[in-house]
């Protein structure tokens, strides 16, 4: 027993623990700075956030210790039961939760508040690892892909119902794990294409996007088709039938919109193309055609979802980032103030406790989601680069450690840790500097909040334990 325990403390990855401790410490220092004022009594003053956070930190370290003690097999065996329990909690919170800022995300037990969606992160990671590590599982198999997506989709949907869009998106990031485990590359390409189309649709008129896609299709066709004549015939068919539709529309006053004309035209020419390609055995024509139809459908549904399903504040946040809308006192306010705070930091920053923007409530959610502003303002470019570098080091180290795991379960869980932290890092810092829309998720280890600190601590220490005992798992 004693030799095994010794083994753990020797084998554990101290570099990750080191970075973890530095980040937690930096987080506390900055929370202290945000809350600091002349009559600050002491760092243990629990009427202030820095006092509370200090207690969360101490308890987090206790938790970390406990999770290192727990046997690795426990996670393996209890991954599914924990997952089910968590889903039950996520359903329960919808009914029993306390509503804060319009979302039912919290259980309030006594004076203590608890956010199940934070803890669902590592549990979903475990469940995913458990499922994907099943022997003989092949992610080329369509049914397995669907099953693994269901594991991810359940918490996404339940958290969307709270509604807490930010947290639910975190689970979507676990798709990165699937990618590593052999999800066909086409999914990644489709995912990327969808992201690009999504942005293009919001930036430009959907009609132009559709026309652009059709043009692109013909360009591909031109490059792939050895007989260039066919391309011109195809284009002629498309153009002529489009012209006819347009004229007929005018003559009979059908009042069809240009979009509709193009869609109908695409359908009609599509049938002609399909017939012709079948006769002439032109496989890639069919592929290109299906891709164009899929892309255009996606474009129109994005447009519909954006304008009809997303709420106004969500539309605005996205528009502000895309530069479509500039509203420095409205929805752009947070980002604008955040950029002012960071921008005013300069190279060396204003110094500890010297920040002005982050102290007087110009930036909202200063100690939670916008904690990076304080770092940018008080520690300047230097501080910002140090923090970003620390996160990059941590994440690269996690990748490295995940890859050195000898079991699939461990590796997949490692990738879950990577995915979740990576997503938080990219979104949180990105939104404070105005590169991604404002999605209210915390900066791991730095932001104020007990639930998130503990959840991230557990997330990372389970992985550290797996890594430390990787030799015995064989």
């Amino acid at each position, binding site marked *: 027993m004693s030799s095994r325990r010794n083994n753990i403390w020797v084998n554990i990855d101290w570099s990750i623990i080191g970075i973890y401790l530095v980040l937690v410490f930096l987080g506390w220092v900055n929370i202290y700075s945000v809350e600091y004022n002349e009559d600050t009594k002491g760092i243990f003053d629990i009427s202030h956030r820095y006092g509370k956070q200090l207690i969360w930190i101490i308890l987090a370290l206790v938790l970390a210790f406990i999770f290192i003690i727990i046997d690795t097999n426990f996670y393996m065996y209890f991954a599914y039961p924990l997952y089910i329990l968590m889903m039950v909690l996520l359903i329960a919170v919808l009914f029993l939760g306390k509503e804060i800022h319009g979302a039912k995300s919290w259980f309030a037990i006594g004076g203590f508040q608890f956010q199940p969606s934070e803890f669902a992160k590592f549990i979903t990671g475990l469940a995913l690892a458990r499922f994907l590590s099943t022997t003989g599982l092949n992610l080329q198999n369509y049914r397995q892909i669907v099953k693994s997506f269901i594991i991810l989709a359940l918490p996404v949907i339940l958290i969307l119902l709270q509604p807490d869009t930010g947290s639910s998106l975190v689970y979507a990031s676990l798709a990165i794990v699937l990618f590593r485990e*052999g999800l066909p590359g086409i999914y990644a390409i489709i995912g990327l294409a969808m992201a690009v189309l999504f942005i293009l649709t919001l930036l430009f008129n959907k009609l132009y996007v559709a026309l652009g896609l059709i043009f692109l299709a013909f360009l591909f066709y031109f490059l792939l088709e050895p007989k260039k004549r066919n391309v011109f015939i195809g284009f002629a068919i498309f153009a002529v039938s489009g012209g006819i539709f347009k004229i007929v529309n005018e003559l009979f006053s059908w009042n069809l919109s240009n979009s509709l004309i193009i869609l109908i035209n695409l359908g009609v020419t599509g049938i002609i193309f399909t017939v012709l390609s079948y006769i002439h055995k032109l496989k890639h024509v069919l592929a290109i055609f299906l891709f164009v139809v899929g892309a255009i459908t996606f474009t129109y549904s994005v447009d519909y979802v954006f304008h009809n399903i997303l709420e106004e504040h969500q539309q605005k946040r996205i528009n502000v980032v895309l530069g479509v809308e500039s509203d420095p006192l409205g929805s752009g306010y947070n980002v604008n103030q955040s950029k002012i705070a960071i*921008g005013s930091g300069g190279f060396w920053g204003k110094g500890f406790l010297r920040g002005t923007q982050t102290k007087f409530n110009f930036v909202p959610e200063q100690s939670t989601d916008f904690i990076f502003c304080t770092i940018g303002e008080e520690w300047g470019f230097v501080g910002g680069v140090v923090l*970003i570098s620390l996160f990059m080091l941590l994440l690269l180290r996690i990748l490295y450690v995940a890859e050195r795991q000898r079991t699939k379960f461990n590796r997949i869980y490692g990738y879950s840790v990577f995915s979740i932290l990576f997503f938080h890092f990219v979104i949180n810092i*990105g939104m404070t500097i105005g590169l991604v829309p404002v999605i209210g998720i915390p900066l791991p280890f730095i932001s104020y909040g007990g639930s998130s600190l503990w959840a991230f601590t557990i997330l990372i220490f389970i992985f550290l334990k797996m890594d430390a005992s990787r030799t015995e798992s064989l």
Partner: protein
Amino acid sequence: MKNQYANRKFVLGGLLVLFGLIYIIKLFQLQILDTSYRLSADNNVLTFVPQHPARGLIYDRNGELVVYNEAAYDLMAVPSQVSDFDTLDLCETLNLNKETLITKLQDAKGYSRYIPSPVVTQISSVNYAKLQEKLYKYPGFYVQSRTLRKYSRNIGAHILGYVGEVDEKAISKNSYYKLGDYIGISGIEKSYETALRGQKGLNIYLVDVHSRRKGPYQNGRFDTVAIVGSNLTACFDVNLQEYGEKLMSNKIGSIVAIEPSTGEVLSLISSPSYKPSLLVGRVRSENYLKLMKDTLKPLFNRALMASYPPGSTFKTINGLIGLQEKVLFPSTSYSCNLGYYARGVHVGCHAHDSPLMLIDAVKNSCNSYFCNVFRSILDDPKFPDIHDSFLNWRNHLLSFGLGQKLGTDFPNELNGFLPEASYFDRYYGEKGWSSLTLISLSIGQGEIGLTPLQMANMTAVIANRGYYFSPHIVRNQNEDNLQKHFSSIDSSYYSTIIEGMDLAVNGIPGTGSTARIARIDSIIVCGKTGTAQNPHGDDHSVFIAFAPKDNPQIAISVLVENGGYGATYAAPIASLMIEKYLKEKIKRKWLEDYILKTDLIHEQQEE
């Protein structure tokens, strides 16, 4: 355990590094390349609050406080910080009705939720004392104190001037002033603006997102302290000024009294005037508009800006020039037969003994005599041409301070009107005019205009027997005021003219003294009447005088527009002023009553 997808870790690692680099580049752009964020941050967080020092006080020559400051209290509210409060209690404290308070608060909210707006202005100090105790109960409210100019006697508007908010022009001219600052607009308030205003201080505060002050910026390292304005002692005598204004009520015109030995202005009255308190505080713009529209032009400072023909008072000066140029001697005598006749020119005169010598000509104010004197000055064979003799005559006048600004400390003094020879060349041609053309100048009519201040100053020169100090209204502020300006007339020539002025007032009854009404038993007043013809209606009543004859303490000019003969109104007013200044008590109640009862304004309008 080899895995065919292991290489995908590089895709993920690369993605991570890519994001990290993009973020670092963006930070570089935000924090180092783009400096505009630093400015925005300062704009966000710093407010510059000027500290306005109390404006200097103004005392009169006897040390009596004339202008001072009174604190006025405004109840301000920051709507975003106002929470529910006992409206009834606040209304009772301030004697308001509830509706007014609520509409005022609504207005404030409409203006801005975060910027303080005045809700109740000019709260009395009594109510303020009551309010102060309760203020803690009204979050979002605070009291801002301002100072308003106050006048102990509510007189002397044309001397003191007034204070108002700076306009765009003043701000662009002088960077000291910022929108909302106060500045002296006329009178002493304008001339001595820099001394009176003191020096503004500046406090820089940090504010939070709701504009709430969070404390001094860098512990007040960049704050500056306000320096209180200097107090000034004005030369005028409030009692005399008040008395003069009373005498001039219901008359249009002006009184200027100067202490000859110093040039200090003892009193300066332009009538009609207005109460200085009318142009203070919130009522200022409304009252200003009213005064602007008044056809009697109460804002127009006649004492400094209006030009009047001096009439016969000018004979004293022509007499002095004649003596100086040796074309006239005390013993020179001219005859007068109800006027002066020469080549078709006729200047009328009243009945008096004839012929007269110089002293009696002044005493009787004989027109013919001074026509002769004036012609002998301009036709003096010493000068080859009338242009030369005219220039010489005009230079004598300039040495009395006529036809030019006297270099006083009044902000809007004018030159009067004293044309050069070229003026006549333009009118009559170079050869087209002679001493006869200008004959009316001999009796102070025609192409001449003096301001009442210039007339008083000219009187001071006579009183001093040959010099003056620039008239000024504030003591000890300007070295130039100690500078003696000598007239071009030798002091020995004055005695004859002064003798004439003495007899004009104190001559034996029935011997033709024109200003016996100005006589004061115990004081020898020397004076000269004038009846200034003018194109605007009845003659102006003019009188210049100084007293006592030896060691004069006051030189005065009085002009009553359309008042008729000099002796009718101007002489009695001047005499009463002298008596008031030298004796303090008026013995001649009947004379005082006569002046006080005279109403030339409303009488005229009835006609």
